[in-house]
């Protein structure tokens, strides 16, 4: 039995055990189902979500809106983070200008900006995309800087010997060296973008999965809260998997091991 089968069996086994105990605790009256609905109730709520995915309630619209906010925020935040990280490393005046703001912003509780973004940009997708971008950009920014700075001095000497221009040195060496660092942070950023989009919807929205989740919570439909949480997790995990597949293709050399040596 290989490791991935063992991991899967462990996961399924532990989940089944926890679910059984959980179900029994709720059925036995030890826990109120408004506080913690039984797994079967959550499954029913997921069925409700699926049966109303199209039609009158049209949850697909909420799903699509939140998906766009997460993806939009992720793309905007990570692109800006890589660009700013590059400016910070490559241009000393930019470093002096940007670093103090970066430190200050990173120290603030970023989710507290959500109401501000709602005031500034209204109730549409914009404040959610910005919130997702804002939250997810910091790990990418930090790793871009670390990655670009991790180029060895003799690698730079080699590029000098080859009379490579500054742009060529950046494109052919520094950026490539930084890529594994950037990809490592993109996976964290994807999870952060989901948090940002949902927080943005909490702060003021008329649609989206975060809005639906908050709406269900206000009506004490805890089972549906769990259902929306699961749907959000599935979206975040699917996007995470896409980043991971991209990582394997783009920074393939990090997986070439010494065991492949001749």
């Amino acid at each position: 039995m290989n490791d991935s089968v063992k991991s899967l069996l462990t996961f399924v086994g532990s989940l089944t055990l926890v679910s059984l105990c959980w179900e029994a605790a709720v059925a036995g009256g030890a826990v109120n189902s408004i506080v913690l609905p039984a797994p079967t109730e959550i499954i029913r709520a997921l069925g409700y979500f699926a049966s109303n995915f199209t039609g009158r309630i049209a949850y697909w619209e909420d799903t699509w809106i939140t998906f766009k906010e997460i993806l939009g925020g992720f793309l905007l935040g990570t692109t800006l983070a890589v660009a700013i990280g590059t400016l910070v490393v490559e241009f000393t005046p930019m470093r002096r200008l940007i670093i103090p703001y970066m430190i200050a912003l990173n120290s603030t509780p970023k989710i507290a900006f959500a109401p501000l973004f709602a005031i500034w940009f209204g109730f549409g997708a914009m404040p959610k995309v910005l919130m997702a971008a804002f939250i997810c950009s910091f790990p990418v920014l930090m790793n871009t800087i670390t990655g670009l700075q991790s180029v060895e001095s003799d690698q730079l000497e080699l590029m000098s010997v080859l009379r490579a221009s500054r742009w060529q040195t950046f494109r052919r060496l520094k950026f490539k060296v930084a890529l594994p660092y950037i990809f490592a942070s993109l996976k964290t950023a994807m999870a952060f973008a989901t948090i940002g989009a949902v927080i943005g919807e909490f702060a003021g929205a008329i649609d989206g999965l975060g809005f639906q989740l908050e709406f269900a919570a206000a009506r004490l439909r805890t089972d549906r809260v769990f259902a929306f949480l699961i749907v959000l997790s599935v979206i975040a995990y699917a996007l995470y998997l896409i980043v991971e597949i991209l990582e394997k293709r783009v920074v393939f050399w990090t997986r070439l091991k010494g065991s492949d040596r001749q």
Partner: protein
Amino acid sequence: MVELIASANVEITNVTKVFSAGTQREVVAIDNLSLEIRPGEIVALLGPSGCGKSTLLKIVAGLIMPTDGQVTIGEEPVVEPSSSVGVMFQKPLLFPWLTVLDNILLPHTVHSIRRNVYQEKAMGLINFVGLSDFHNHYPAQLSGGMQQRVAICRMLVTEPNLYLLDEPFGALDELTREYLDIELRRIIQSKGQSAILVTHNPVEAAFIADRIVVMSKRPGRIVGEVVVPILEERTSALFATEELNQFVREARMLLEFEDDAR
């Protein structure tokens, strides 16, 4: 496949290099050193660690400027790296994201020259160093010795008329180093070019070079020379001969004399 290009005459005149000049941490790395390398000559710079031999090589390569004095290559003063000079470093410095062939073509691709222009030449070099089955492999899939052979090809592909070799096999085991010493001597001789080899290994110096220049501890000065007039082809059998050992002993005596004099 062997093409002869006019080899360079190198004149190092009264070169001094001081690091952190005028500060408390001032270090005189090289002190008023003069040396001439004649066209087609292979010179080994032999000396203890920190004697400034690598610094001297970097000055000849145009990577750093001397504090005083001048270096000329074929009448031209060295002020920056030149396309007519090929450099090999202690580490192979191959880019892990490029195949063997693409690493060898790097000196051309950084200048945006289309790879197919030099591909045939690069393949010829790969055959020359016995790596013809590995042109599509990545560096992580090669042994240390194979990686250094790729680095030799990367140096040769631009057809330089001066080779600067900074302890190119210092990080390899004894057997691989001897094998590559034979290979390097064969390659340099077949091209008929001048070369400066930096090493702290007297055996390697005597095997590869036509002349060994022994340097003192910091600040680097020349303490003596040993001419190695072995004209016949240098094969692995030479390592065990009294003829080579005699030159190794002479070089060692100069190193030890320098030690005793201090």
